[in-house]
């Protein structure tokens, strides 16, 4: 990878003990964004949103990918420690973008104003297959516990994505094989968004992929 990974060394501090540390899934999403760098720059995004930003590694990296152009990159997370970690990570990462953090679930509270205006939407959801009861059971579990088929959280977002994206807007999401990526792609096709698997990698027991969906231009 030619672009440096954002420094998240501050996550070792006790105040960030509940924040998900960048791991293979995070790095795969960074690689997918970097692979698309030329296209993303040509798209010239103005508003980008990362849902569940955790450490802020992905939001900060997106700023780097878009440089020398600037965008507004809004990062949401339900965990206030993650909001703060994200702010610290983006502050350490040089880019031309403007960053904002908001404590919320998905895009609640910004969805109305940003409907049809999000040029790049990113989500590394809690995708691990767990009993339903584990979803949101603790602030730490909220970062990884995905419930039945690891889809319970992602499935809440999917129907909202087409309306949130601007014409030509893109949605990147991290999945594992148990989430049934082909089924997700078919679901989006029904909603009018074409999508594909753009990158896959095996990491331990996880078979990770990045799916990318694009809203048709007007």
């Amino acid at each position, binding site marked *: 990878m030619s672009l440096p990974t954002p420094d998240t060394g501050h996550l070792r501090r006790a105040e960030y003990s509940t924040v998900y540390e960048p791991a293979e899934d995070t790095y795969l999403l960074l690689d997918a964004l970097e692979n698309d760098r030329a296209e993303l720059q040509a798209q*010239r995004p*103005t*508003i980008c949103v990362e849902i569940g930003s955790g450490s802020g590694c992905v939001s900060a990296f997106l700023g780097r990918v878009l440089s020398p*152009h*600037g*965008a*507004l990159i*809004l990062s949401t997370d*339900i965990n*206030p420690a993650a*909001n*703060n970690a994200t*702010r610290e990570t983006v502050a350490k990462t040089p880019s*031309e973008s*403007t960053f*904002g*953090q*908001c*404590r*919320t*679930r998905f895009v*609640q*509270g*910004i*969805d*109305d*104003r*940003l409907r049809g*205006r999000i040029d790049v939407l990113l989500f590394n959801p809690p995708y691990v297959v767990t009993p339903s009861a584990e979803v949101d059971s603790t602030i730490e579990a909220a970062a990884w516990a995905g419930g039945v088929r690891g889809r319970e959280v992602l499935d809440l977002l999917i129907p909202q994505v087409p309306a949130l994206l601007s014409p030509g807007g893109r949605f990147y999401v991290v999945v594992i094989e148990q989430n049934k990526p082909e089924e997700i792609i078919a679901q989006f096709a029904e909603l009018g968004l074409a999508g594909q698997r753009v990158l896959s990698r095996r990491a331990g027991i996880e078979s990770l992929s990045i799916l990318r969906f694009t809203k048709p231009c007007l």
Partner: protein
Amino acid sequence: MRLLTHNMLKCHVKNCTDPDKQYPLRFKDVQIEQIEYEPNEEFLVRMLPRIDWSALVKTAKDLNIGIPGSMPEDPASDQDFLQKLHTIIMETHITEGSMVCDGCSHEYKITKGIANMLLAEHEI
């Protein structure tokens, strides 16, 4: 939190649906900090159509920040306007306080510059 980010926030309490009252959220007991940045005019011009101008004017007036009442005809070539816009939406940060919805009176807290838009289950 920049005023640019505030411009994107709207009350999302269930049954709070009066569009004239749930947006923009009104600042209450806020601390304001000005932080200087190098203006990026190209970005400002791209962002301008996505800003709700009347909400921004209302918010700036509430905070006693001077703002042009209307947008110039050709904002992209109006240096003065872009500099003012930059100062308002990019350099003005709210660090503490809250935002109140005039429709349902819900108060959203701002802590260390981060707005809490989370609602309890029964409010969604």
